[in-house]
Every structure is written in C-alpha cells, then in structure tokens.
C-alpha cells in the first residue's frame, strides 16, 4: 500500500498574522448572531400539521352524534401492533351494528395508518393530534368516549383521503 501523501497547506503572510483571519471569522459569526432564528417556541407556538399528517387514530362522529363505525373488526384485524379492540353489538339504527366497546392502546399504536386504510366506512381516520401524554398505562388505552371526534374537525383529512386513495 502506498503511503498517503497530503499536500501541506501553507498559510500566506496575512493568514499567519491570525488577527485578520479572526476578524473575518468574527464578521461571519456576527452575521449569524443577527440572523432571524427559525426556532418555533413550541408550547406557545403550536405546529398545525398538514392534512397528510398521520397523528393519533380517532373515530369519526357524524353530526347526529353517532359514530360511523359498523364494528366490522377489519381495523383490529389489520393493526400490526394489535392496538385496537372492537366489540360489536346490534343497534336499531340503519347501520344495524355498532361498536359497543372500541379501544385503541396508544402505547401500542405505531401510527402506521393501516386501520384508516382498511376501514370500509371511513370511520377511523388519523387525526392531526400529536400531543399524547399519559401518566398511567391505563390512561393510554383510549375508549370510545375519548376517540369520538366530530366530523368537522376531521374534514381536511377525509378530503385528503378521498383525493389520494
């Protein structure tokens, strides 16, 4: 193997004086100092995700207050993380079946969006929520009461899905 030869960079006279070069560096850092910062001050200034964002999965609630879900169990079946549990029951409504119990374990969910993709009723969609904090394992299992979200809030995501799926 050949020994690596490295060209030695020889400093010019001005560079050897250090001071002009240091002043140059200081000019550069001063420029950075007065530049506008891109930091978002998070808790005060929240990021609003675009419609394509996959946040926490939620159940769509129609205007009449009833969920769209027909408890077919497809989402539960497809979920790679086994995060969803559905228990079906009969109802007098037009849709005949409804989920008596619908739970998503947010500690298991990996936000893959498969549940949303597989749902025949567009009943489960990925919301733009990204702030999920729990102090207890039990709290992390969200029941129907927490999952149901009015359809207005999910309109952008539903439109996005119509367009791109």
């Amino acid at each position: 193997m050949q020994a690596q030869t490295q060209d030695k960079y020889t400093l010019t006279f001005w560079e050897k004086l250090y001071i002009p070069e240091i002043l140059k560096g200081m000019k550069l850092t001063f420029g950075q100092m007065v530049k506008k910062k891109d930091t978002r001050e998070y808790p005060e200034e929240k990021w609003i995700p675009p419609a394509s964002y996959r946040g926490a999965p939620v159940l769509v609630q129609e205007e009449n207050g009833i969920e769209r879900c027909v408890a077919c169990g497809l989402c539960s079946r497809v979920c790679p993380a086994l995060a969803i549990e559905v228990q079906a029951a009969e109802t007098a409504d037009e849709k005949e079946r409804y989920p008596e119990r619908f739970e998503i374990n947010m500690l298991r969910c990996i936000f893959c969006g498969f549940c949303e993709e597989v749902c025949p009723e567009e009943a489960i969609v990925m919301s733009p929520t990204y702030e999920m904090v729990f102090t207890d394992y039990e709290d992390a299992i969200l029941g129907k009461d927490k999952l149901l979200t009015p359809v207005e809030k999910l309109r952008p995501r539903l439109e996005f899905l119509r367009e791109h799926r």
Partner: protein
Amino acid sequence: MEFTDILISLIKIIVMFVVVLVTVAELVYTERKISAWIQNRIGPNRVGWKGLLQPYADVIKLLLKEDIVPTAANKFIHTLAPVISIGVAFSTLAVVPIAGETISMFGREVQMVIADVNIGILYILALTSMGVYGLTLSGWSSNNKYSLLGGLRSSAQMISYELSMGLSVIGVVMVTGSLQLTDVVTHQAGWMWNMVLQPVGFITFVVAAFAETNRTPFDLPEAEPELVGGYHTEYSSFKFALFFLAEYANMITASAVITTLYLGGWQVPYLELLQLPSGIVVALQILAFVVKVAFMLFVFQWVRWTVPRFRYDQLMDLGWKVMLPIALANVIATGIVILLIS
C-alpha cells in the same frame, strides 16, 4: 485615616462587589444568549422575562448540590484554591477609576476609584499573576491527573503570556509617564486613546488578556474534550460556583483594565466643551466607562464562540515566538518615537 474615610471606602467596596456580582450573573446569561445566537438558536428564555433570571436559577441549583472533596485531596488547599481565584479577580478592580470628577459624600470630595495607588499598573500585573496560584493549586490539590494537567497548563500559559502583557503595558507607561491609573486615563483626553497611540500594544495586550482570563481560544486549562473539566474537575457545589464566578469576574476585570489602559477609561471625547454641571459629568463618565467595558465583554464572548481552541504547542509558539518579540519591538519603537518627538 478617620472613620469617615473607612466608611467611604467600605461603601465603595460594597457597591463594587454588588455591581460585579450582578454583572457576573448577567454575563452568564449573555454568554448563553450569544452562543445561542451564533449557533442559530434562541437561548434561555424560560426563567423570568426573556430568561433573565436563568443565572439565578443556575446558582440555586449549584448551591443545592452536594459539596464533594475527594478523599485523596489535600483538604486545606482544595478549599483555599477557589478563594484565591475569586479574591484576586475582585481585588484587581480596586484600582480601576470609573469616573474622573469627584462627588461629595459626608462633606468630602470622593474620588470614583476605591484605591488610587500610585503604582496601579504594577498592582494589576502583580495580582493577575497571583491568579495562576488559584488554578495551579486547585489542580494539584485535587489529586487527579486531569486536574493536575489543567493546573500545569494554566501555569505555563499564564507565565508565558504575563511577559507579553507586561511588555505591552510598558508602552502605555512610556506614553503616560506614570504608573497611576488615574493619570493614565487623564492622559487619554479627547481621542488620544492609547488604542490610537499604541495600536500594536493594544492588540498584544488584548490577546494576552484573553490568555490570562483562560477564555477561548486560550482555554486550555479547562479543555473539556481532553481534560474532563480541567483544574476544576474535582470541584462541586459552592466551590465550583466560586471558580465559575472567578472566571467571569476575571473577564470583567480584564475588560475594565483594557478600557482603562487603552480605550480611554471614563473619557468622553469633547465633553468638557459642553460645560455641564459636575453631577451630570460624573454620570456620563460612569456611563462611558460602563459602555466601554460592556463592549469589551461582548467582544470576549463573541471571540469565544468564534475561534476554536489552540493546540498546546501552538499556544506556546504564539506566546514566545510571536507575542513576545512583537511586544518587545513595540517597546523599542515607542521609545524611539518618544525620543524623536521630545
């Protein structure tokens, strides 16, 4: 010495102490802010308005920590070292004049300097070279190889730069013809600042001041990547806080000395033409002094976050082969010019 004299001195000392302590606290804040800005961040902004109370939170955190003295350490010297550091840093400020006019207090004309000794410059040089003991002793007494290396480095570095520092000051002494700091400042009336009269000496002095205060690019005694924490590796809690305080107090001292020796101290150019009452003149002079010191402090921090650390041999090369000859040449040149003019 009468009682009133002692009282006046005490008041001056206490005022100086409080001002320096508060400035140190806010320097920690500005340091973090400036580093953040240079790195395109925002910096501390949570504690208090715009994060201004951040340093106080830091201090409280430090004081609540356990104070650990290593078993193998020399306890007495381990405790003494930070005290030397901080003592030296503060006492240097005693001879720095902050305004030219006198103010009356208790029926006396009080000078705006704690001690107007006639060997002020020698006093400063002597005390700053004392500062090295704090660092060296802390490194030695900790009984830890990293601390020891840090301490050794600091002594080698400070001794090398002390020389060029002293030689740069000789230029100022030659121009002024006095070792008294009040004379030095009075001599720089108008725009005849020593920075203008002694440009080369100014640069060598500032570089040496950076080395004396152990600031980047000369912060080898505490080079984190190689030496853990350097000389204060084995310090915690309040003693660590003292070292921290000493570092920043040293920066203030260095800025004040640079201002006094080279930037015209409290001089406001052409102020005497306005014929203002003496109270306002004092206020303006203090303001001028503070602004100049603040500017120097900003430069200290600005340089710190711009220039990377020197390698050790580069540092020694620069000190002995570059700075010393330049400072010597400056003394000779100044002498020749003075001889030709007079």
